């Protein structure tokens, strides 16, 4: 039963592999093809912008896949392939934007919001604890309080 299940699981997982790049020839060397696939996943299809070029059926995405494979055969490093793409299409072609001046807000805003949240929680806590234990009354205040209470009883 366990073997059957794991066999079925393997079958199911292999389907996603069939879906990738069926229209072109993968590289003969599995390691190189794996590198190509990894790079393609990082590159945005410019026609249908929320897909990587692996997922897209657009002609341009197909051309870019072919180019990624060609560059790998030509001996490019991953960095060189990415540079080839960004020199033509800008950082836009990267699904993961680089960390630089223009994207600093994008990258840091989650942490900034978290920080703001902590400050708000801290201040609320501080205010609550102040409310729970107000400063003890001074001598004058105590005397006044007694006077007031007396007045109230007398009314």
């Amino acid at each position: 039963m366990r073997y059957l299940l794991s066999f079925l699981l393997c079958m199911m997982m292999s389907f996603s592999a069939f879906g990738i790049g069926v229209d072109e020839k993968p590289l003969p060397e599995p390691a190189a093809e794996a590198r190509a696939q990894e790079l393609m996943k990082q590159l945005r299809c410019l026609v249908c912008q929320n897909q990587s070029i692996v997922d897209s059926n657009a002609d341009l995405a197909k051309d870019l896949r072919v180019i990624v494979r060609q560059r790998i055969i030509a001996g490019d490093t991953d960095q060189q392939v990415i540079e080839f793409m960004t020199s033509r299409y800008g950082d836009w072609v990267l699904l993961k934007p680089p960390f630089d001046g223009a994207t600093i807000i994008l990258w840091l805003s989650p942490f900034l919001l978290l920080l703001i949240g902590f400050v708000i929680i801290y201040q609320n806590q501080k205010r609550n604890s102040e409310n729970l234990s107000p400063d003890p009354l001074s001598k004058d205040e105590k005397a006044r309080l007694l006077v007031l209470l007396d007045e109230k009883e007398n009314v």
Partner: protein
Amino acid sequence: MSLNRFIPLMIFCVLSFALYVGLNLNPSDIPSALINDSIPEFDLPVVGGEEASFSSVDLTKEEGIILVNFFASWCVPCYVEQPFLMKLKERGYKIYGISYKDKARDTNKFLSKEGNPYYKVAADEKGRVGIDWGVYGVPETYIIKDGIIRYKHAGPILEMEFEDNFMPIIESIDQ
């Protein structure tokens, strides 16, 4: 304390402003990586001309401002744009055409039917030159001066786009 009461209002205002600006941006407007760079080198056959080839050298040796237009006979917006390109030609603009992923026969048919506004047309049948230029959809038009790309517009150009986006750049280059 009184300032704290305005914090939600301030957050609302900032958010409204960010959304107002953000939602008005066109998500398919991809900034060109090649602005102020020299044009990518290429050497392509000419469509329907006497000369055998059309290369980047033809563009760099031009003295004035030129336009380079990527188009295709299979591209619907190109049919919309063509009459305006004819008008630009009449106004004296020198337009170079690069037919993108198109067969020479279809390009010729397109040009004889819709009019030929181009000084010279190159055939980029495989689309590789287009990729070097950062083309992601036709039509795309580039403003070039001395072999340097000064502006890129994706999508068809009509009177309004030309006046709003092209003219300021052309005027600033001219001075």
